[in-house]
């Protein structure tokens, strides 16, 4: 499993691996929004939590179809399915690798972009915490969607349509945490729900995704 994780990270870093695509998108979005909305600090500050969360979510979405499609194209997925690693483990490791190259860098980059969007000073810690709790859901739900669409040519659009509704709870609670953090309100409930969704998704979806893969490999 460690070998698979290291291979996926190495592939992501090499040319054409797609590392940085999501980050660049996130950066561009956060730079363009103030230009489009106008430099009025109060307005920007109010929409900043939502913009940052939507940006992170879309940035994650960009690289989802690569999770399994590349391995399916070159035959590695068949070989991994016949290898000693259980398919559930393959899914979990590949989702983890996806999170490490998109979710984690997005989380670390977000405070810097919060400055561009005039995010309230009290919200920075909550922004990082909410992304840290929420982005693993984005990766594992994405891996499930990618497993469902793995055999399809140009399955990217279908993947987005499948996955976006499943992202909504995470988006709602994640942005709510940051918004309440900015206003200095109590935020225990959305934070707990955000963490609960993550834990549930991480616990259940590898099994669902592995079943979907088995059907698609037939």
């Amino acid at each position, binding site marked *: 499993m460690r070998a*698979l994780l290291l*291979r996926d990270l190495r592939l992501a870093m090499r040319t*054409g691996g797609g590392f940085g695509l999501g980050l660049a998108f996130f950066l561009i979005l956060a730079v363009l929004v103030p230009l489009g909305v106008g430099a009025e600090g109060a307005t920007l500050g109010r929409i900043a939590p939502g913009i940052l969360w939507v940006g992170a979510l879309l940035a994650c979405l960009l690289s989802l179809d690569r999770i399994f499609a590349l391995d399916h194209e*070159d035959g590695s997925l068949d*070989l*991994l399915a016949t290898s*000693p690693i259980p398919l559930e483990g393959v899914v979990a490791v590949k989702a983890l690798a996806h999170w490490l190259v998109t979710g984690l860098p997005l989380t670390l980059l977000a405070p810097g972009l919060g400055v561009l969007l005039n995010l309230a000073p009290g919200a920075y810690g909550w922004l990082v915490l909410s992304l840290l709790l929420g982005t693993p859901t984005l990766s594992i739900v994405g891996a499930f969607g990618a497993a469902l669409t793995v055999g399809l040519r140009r399955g990217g659009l279908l993947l987005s349509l499948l996955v976006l509704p499943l992202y909504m709870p995470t988006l709602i609670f994640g942005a709510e945490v940051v918004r309440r953090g900015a206003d200095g309100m109590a935020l225990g409930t959305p934070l707990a729900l955000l963490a609960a969704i993550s834990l549930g998704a991480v616990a259940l979806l590898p099994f669902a995704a592995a079943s979907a893969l088995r059907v698609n*490999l037939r």
Partner: protein
Amino acid sequence: MVMTARNLAVARGGVTVLQGLDFALAPGEALILRGPNGSGKTTLLRTLAGLQPLAGGEIDLPPDTVAYAAHADGLKSTLTVAENLAFWAAIYGGPSPDQAVQAMDLAALTRRRAGELSAGQKRRLGLARLLVTGRPLWLLDEPTVSLDVASVALFAEVVRQHLAGGGAAIIATHVDLGLPEARVFDLDPYRIRIMVRDGFDEAFG
């Protein structure tokens, strides 16, 4: 016995293509599958590898026995030859890649990226993967595609050594591998004919 199949039926896309297959494979034995295109060779191999469910019958196969080599080699073009092999060796926990590199004559290429190899070299790398799995039963789907004569001989020698070490292999191929000791298994009698031919269909006759 490495594996036994009893009254096996296999299906492709929900349609049964082969049925009534009975065969067993002892250590040191090789089985060569023969049959025209579309006769179900690949489907049979994928079923034995556990990628497809059985359509009927049963397979006696201990877990963690099979190494499967498909049409696609499963290589990552941005990784080097050595990295590709080391990855599969780590996944299977098999022997070190050095011996596989020697056996498939890849020593001069280890630092090259897999994407820069020729088709035949890629194929040799894909077959070298079998050696690092350490699995006793090899399922090979057209292993000699894009190999030149010398490489085919090289590969036949690798298979022969695998058999001599108590391994077994099931090989779907159109090319003569130079393995006279291998048993040829013609799939034609087991095919299910869906098309109605003149004088062939008793049910509607």
